[in-house]
């Protein structure tokens, strides 16, 4: 029963990440998503120290704020022209992540957080943390959190589909047409931060990037439209998370690690198939 819950949480996480992941790949922001997934940590910890409840929605807000802070600081540094964009990403996120790690090690190694679980995630723990209202058990809280995030992500993409595509493929044109590129950029980064923190339990801070990037990049190998890419990214995310789950069960290893490995395997197989087809054609 528990392992079924774990499987489902992994599945939901993978789907939630694959949706914004497609745009991250297309907008060439893969490394930015890595930086965001590190930077949400201090926000989570500080919010936790304030409310002292691990499943409070305030934690998601705190995380989103520190994710946005990272995006803002990176832009501030690279706009000053003193440092190039790639280096400014490498400057900001280790700093924010370090603050988070130090807070954990100083404040709460005895409480719910541990450096290692922040990294690797603790999917089994989140499968045990059920939503109970008036004594009625409605299943793991993670279901509801991840379900809402998937819904928010889908809504965001449906509502801003035109704007997202335009700013992704022709930013100059969209600027000329009067779209607010920067506003949309920050809105999208908010979505990425929220997704990163909701996936924290299952994937840990580092492996979120595997779920963001790899299924979307796999889909990018052969698809030609954004909708196809998102659909295939979700399919690959589902395949990777299910097979990764069983891989981890078989070897008795971390579920998040297994999912990341399977993401890589699925990518490799797809790349080989695409190449073989190209050679034959």
């Amino acid at each position, binding site marked *: 029963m528990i392992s079924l819950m774990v499987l489902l949480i992994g599945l939901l996480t993978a789907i939630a990440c694959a949706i914004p992941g497609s745009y991250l790949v297309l907008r060439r922001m893969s490394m930015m998503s890595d930086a965001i997934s590190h930077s949400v940590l201090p926000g989570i910890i500080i919010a936790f120290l304030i409310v002292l409840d691990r499943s409070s929605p305030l934690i998601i807000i705190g995380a989103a704020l520190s994710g946005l802070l990272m995006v803002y600081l990176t832009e501030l540094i690279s706009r000053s022209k003193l440092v190039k964009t790639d280096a400014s990403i490498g400057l900001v996120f*280790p700093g924010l992540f370090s603050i988070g790690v130090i807070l954990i090690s100083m404040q709460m190694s005895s409480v719910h957080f541990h450096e290692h679980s922040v990294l690797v995630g603790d999917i089994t723990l989140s499968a045990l943390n059920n939503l109970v209202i008036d004594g009625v058990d409605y299943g793991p809280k993670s279901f509801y959190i991840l379900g809402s995030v998937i819904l928010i992500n889908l809504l965001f993409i449906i509502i801003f589909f035109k704007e997202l595509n335009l700013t992704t493929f022709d930013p100059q044109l969209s600027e000329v047409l009067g779209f607010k590129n920067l506003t949309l950029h920050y809105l999208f980064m908010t979505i990425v931060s929220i997704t990163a923190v909701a996936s924290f339990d299952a994937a840990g801070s580092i492996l979120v990037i595997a779920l963001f990037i790899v299924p979307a990049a796999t889909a990018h190998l052969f698809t030609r439209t954004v909708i196809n890419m998102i659909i295939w990214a979700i399919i690959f995310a589902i395949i990777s998370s299910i097979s990764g789950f069983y891989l981890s069960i078989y070897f008795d290893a*971390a579920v998040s690690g297994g999912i990341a490995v399977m993401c890589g395997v699925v990518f490799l197989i797809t790349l080989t198939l695409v190449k073989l087809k190209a050679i034959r054609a």
Partner: protein
Amino acid sequence: MEFIHDIFFDYTIRNVALGSSILGIVAGAFGSFAFLRRESLAGDVVAHSALPGIVLAFLLGFFITGSSSKNSLVLILGATITGFLSMHFSSRLMNISKIKSDSSMGIMLAVFFGLGIFLLSLIQRRNIPGKSGLQDYIFGSASTLTHSDVNIILIFGALTLMSLFIFWKEFKLHTFDRTYAHSLGFNSKLLDTMMVSSIVIAIIIGLQSVGVILMVAMIVTPAAAARQWTNKLSTMVIISAFIGLVAGLSGALISASVQKLPTGPVIVLLLVLIFVISILFSPNRGLIAELIKNIARKQRIRLSLVLVDLYQLKIHHNDDYNVGHSAKVLLTMHEQKFNVRKSLIILAELGLVRNMNGDVWVLTDKGLKKAESILLTKGELI
């Protein structure tokens, strides 16, 4: 005093201090090249991808010898192999598919690191002796450095720094103008391999102290800070190595003296502090210097405007030498309002205008010439 005594005579503290200083120097020096080649984030990929190599090398050593001696040399070799592989794959991937550089780096980082975590957790849940130290490679723990670890860091650090001295000219040329270096007959492929290998070694020898996640900061931050103070490569490399030394040494000592404080984050925060100071206070490129320059520039523009206005009034009114104009008139001549009187007082101090009576001002001979020269050259200000 006791602390200084400890640095030289306490076994752990001496190892920590020595090891972290050397890795700070090496990472700082080669970080400058990674920074200038715009390969900062590739450092992040290499550091993360070293984890599966470390764990695999440990496992291999365990299966071959039957005992788990955590031989640093073997672990470093494993780390170097997977670090290189992931870098090689990520550049191959860009060539053979439509995946862009950021995604190919992201894929390699995520999958290699995922494999590392997978293998690490696999070991953690089994009864293998000596497994506990592997965990330290994630966040770094300088206090676990042994004497032989320090020797390895020393040897590899010395080797890479020596190659930097010997091939300084070649490295410099290759970093700034690859094509020109190639046309002069330098083997650019060999040089590239040498530089990348040196950067990879600089990253790998820091992993035990700083950890795979934060090692990127050891490469990027000293270089970014050093860049603010100089435009010369040799100076930049020296400053960057010095910053790495200071942050590495003090961070390691702080974390070794406070319980449960991981080394990597402390060093990173010190580095960030040094970077912020550099970006604010450096005399040529710093933000505060820039701010002061801007204020001074605006001041000069205002002074010139007022002077030229006074000159225009004089010409249009065919004024005699001693007829002046009121500051109120000057105030109406621009949409952008600023303190005209203050500018007039400064101009008077410079001997360019003269106050006649009350609010009336007139150009001096010197001011007349200056205004004419401003109008003639059109760019020159006061």
